[in-house]
């Protein structure tokens, strides 16, 4: 039986200079690389496959399998691209990881690159976190000076270099093919699949796109072994992950734990609900995953259990909302987000999110019409599975799940504004000193 929390990637985040190479080396840093360079590349892929680690970026595809699905070497370039475009509402694990412990990612990138035959890896970081970019640039510089990067990595004649690339503000670039288009200097719009990136990715070459946490977990798997990794978590969701609790808990924060921990345990660790209030709804994996309620507190937070309960583990972005919050207001704002971030490439998502937004906003204002709920569900039905990428599907998740659990609040939106039913000042974390503005003044501005 493993402990409730298992600090691994977060283990020395409290060191005064946790981000430096010196600190990382004091905590076994780059020992996994030394070990990996003694192994055949295929043996590294096998070890990662054997660990059964599933991608930590939301979709949960097995990392080792992704690597082995890449087209076989043909003498041309092969690429590793790290998806560090963390933008899913509620998700806040990769950014603190890269800020506090960037070398875990860098070491993982070097090992993964060696394993898949990549000589030039990329880290695509969202552009809105400048200090994280500084830390990554510095970490690459330190790793290069230490001989971990370049044309003779570890003195073994292996070539690996890393370019850290800053995006410029676009949620869609978290979608792996949109990310590749963006990295190629284009508008970040998703590509038609197949071909998958493993066959034709960056510059139409075989490419593996992996999440930050997936890659940062690789050094541990190599150093401690796949059995060590499998010793944590559940049979089909092995290992550990960072769980991010935010919202109406007493102490929000990051908790690194084996997959399968429950929300009840996590909320307890976070000091319970703020002011002893009642939990109303929460997201297991960000705004794109159907919401859960109190009845789901004991669902093990692993890929399969969350899916069986009707949602997705996603990025373990646990956003907690108490009884003071209007679910209509929350969902309306997420819908604004998806409409704003829809890239415009496909019609169901571009037009559908626009209409969802109109309807959600009028329900929030208490001006919904009799058939608005049916219309919402119908539009969602026409987006889900019919849009070009997962963004469109994601836009429907909060709406359909909220209608499922809180239909009466949508019905109330036909006559009463959400801010009258749930005064917003009751949800805020500070004392409100002036009269609260109404929805009119806080409506999202079209951008």
């Amino acid at each position, binding site marked *: 039986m493993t402990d*409730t*929390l*298992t*600090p*691994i990637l*977060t*283990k020395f985040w*409290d060191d005064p200079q946790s*981000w430096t190479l010196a600190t990382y080396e004091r*905590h076994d840093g780059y020992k996994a690389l030394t070990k990996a360079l003694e192994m055949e590349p295929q043996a590294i892929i096998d070890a990662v496959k054997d660990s059964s680690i599933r991608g930590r970026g939301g979709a949960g595809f097995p990392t080792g399998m992704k690597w082995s699905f890449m087209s076989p070497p043909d003498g041309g370039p092969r690429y590793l691209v790290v998806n560090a475009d963390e*933008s899913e*509402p*509620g*998700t*806040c694990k990769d*950014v603190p990881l890269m*800020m*506090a*412990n960037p070398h875990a990612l860098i070491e993982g990138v070097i090992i993964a690159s060696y394993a898949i035959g990549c000589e030039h890896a990329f880290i695509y970081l969202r*552009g809105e*976190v*400048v*200090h994280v*970019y*500084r830390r990554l640039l510095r970490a690459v510089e330190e790793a290069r000076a230490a001989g971990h990067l370049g044309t003779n990595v570890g003195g073994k004649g292996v070539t690996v270099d890393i*370019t850290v*690339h*800053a995006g*410029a*503000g*676009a*949620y869609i670039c978290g979608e792996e093919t949109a990310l590749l288009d963006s990295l190629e*200097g*284009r*508008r*970040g719009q998703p590509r038609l699949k197949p071909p998958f990136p493993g066959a034709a990715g960056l510059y139409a070459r075989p490419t593996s796109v992996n999440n930050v946490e997936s890659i940062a977990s690789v050094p541990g798997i190599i150093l401690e072994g796949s059995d*060590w990794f499998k010793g944590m978590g559940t049979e089909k969701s092995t290992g*550990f992950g960072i769980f991010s609790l935010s919202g109406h808990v007493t102490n*929000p*924060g*990051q908790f*690194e734990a084996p997959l399968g921990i429950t929300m009840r345990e996590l909320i307890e*660790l976070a000091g319970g609900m703020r002011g002893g209030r009642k939990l109303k709804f929460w997201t297991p994996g960000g705004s794109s995953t159907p919401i859960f309620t109190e009845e789901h507190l004991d669902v093990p937070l692993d890929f399969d259990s969350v899916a069986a309960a009707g949602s997705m583990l996603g990025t373990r*972005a646990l956003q907690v*909302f108490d009884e003071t919050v209007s679910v209509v207001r*929350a*969902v309306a*704002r997420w819908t604004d*987000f998806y409409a*704003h971030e829809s890239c415009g490439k496909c019609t169901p998502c571009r037009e559908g999110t626009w209409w969802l937004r109109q309807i959600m906003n009028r329900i929030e204002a208490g001006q919904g019409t009799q058939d608005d709920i049916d219309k919402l569900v119908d539009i969602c039905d026409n987006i889900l599975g019919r849009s070009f990428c997962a963004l469109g599907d994601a836009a429907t998740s909060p709406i359909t799940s909220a209608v499922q659990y809180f239909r009466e609040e949508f019905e109330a939106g036909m006559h009463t504004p959400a801010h009258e039913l749930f005064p*917003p000042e009751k*949800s*805020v*974390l*500070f004392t409100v*000193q*002036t009269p609260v*503005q109404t929805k009119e003044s*806080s409506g999202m*501005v079209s951008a």
Partner: protein
Amino acid sequence: MSGHDASGHLHVSSESKAPYAADVLEKLHVDAAEVIARYPQKRSALLPLLHLVQSVDGYVTGRGVSFCAEVLDLTEAEVSGVATFYTQYKRHPNGDYTVGVCTNTLCAVMGGDLIFDRLSEHLGIGHDETTEDGRITLERVECNAACDYAPVVMANWEFFDNQTPESTIGLVEDLRAGKDVAPTRGAAKVCTFKEVSRVLAGFEDGRADEGVGAGPASLLGLKIANERGWTAPGAQADGKDAK
């Protein structure tokens, strides 16, 4: 505002097409060559080059678009098409400091909406507008990956955690007064929009070692684990003793 219209298209004013001074252009070419060298194919340099243009001009100017097109062998339409896709590229002159209040659901509910409204009223400007003194551009921003510190405000893409209307008004007033302002988690002070744009183009400014590694919320799980003696399997022997 002359730089954009409701359609969101890039309409550049004629003054933004005025040629660069010779020395500025020469420096731009040197920097651009360094950026291009980071990539196997030069078009990949477009995003950082647009950040670089903003570091010189304060927004994506007509001449900046022409410069990128020239060095990357693209059409100006191709460059504009990219520049208008991403929210960090500004289509009209930006203030010295972009102050972005997160108004995505979680932050909005925890107080972000109130912060934005109070700030907007205080500054007399709305989303994507700039104060008359040219110091502050106010924005609503989407989730910035710091939800455990909600409500969050970003100043030139540095983190200001656990904000209130009062703290944010204090922040903008200090920035307007020219005082050095330290983010909660970030560099020792908030740099200007142009300075930060240069970093985003991939040019280090020597500030990586400034600031904290992690804030209290990031450390909460670790703290509890340490208090209760919880560790990962096999981790008892190493790690903690090294501190």
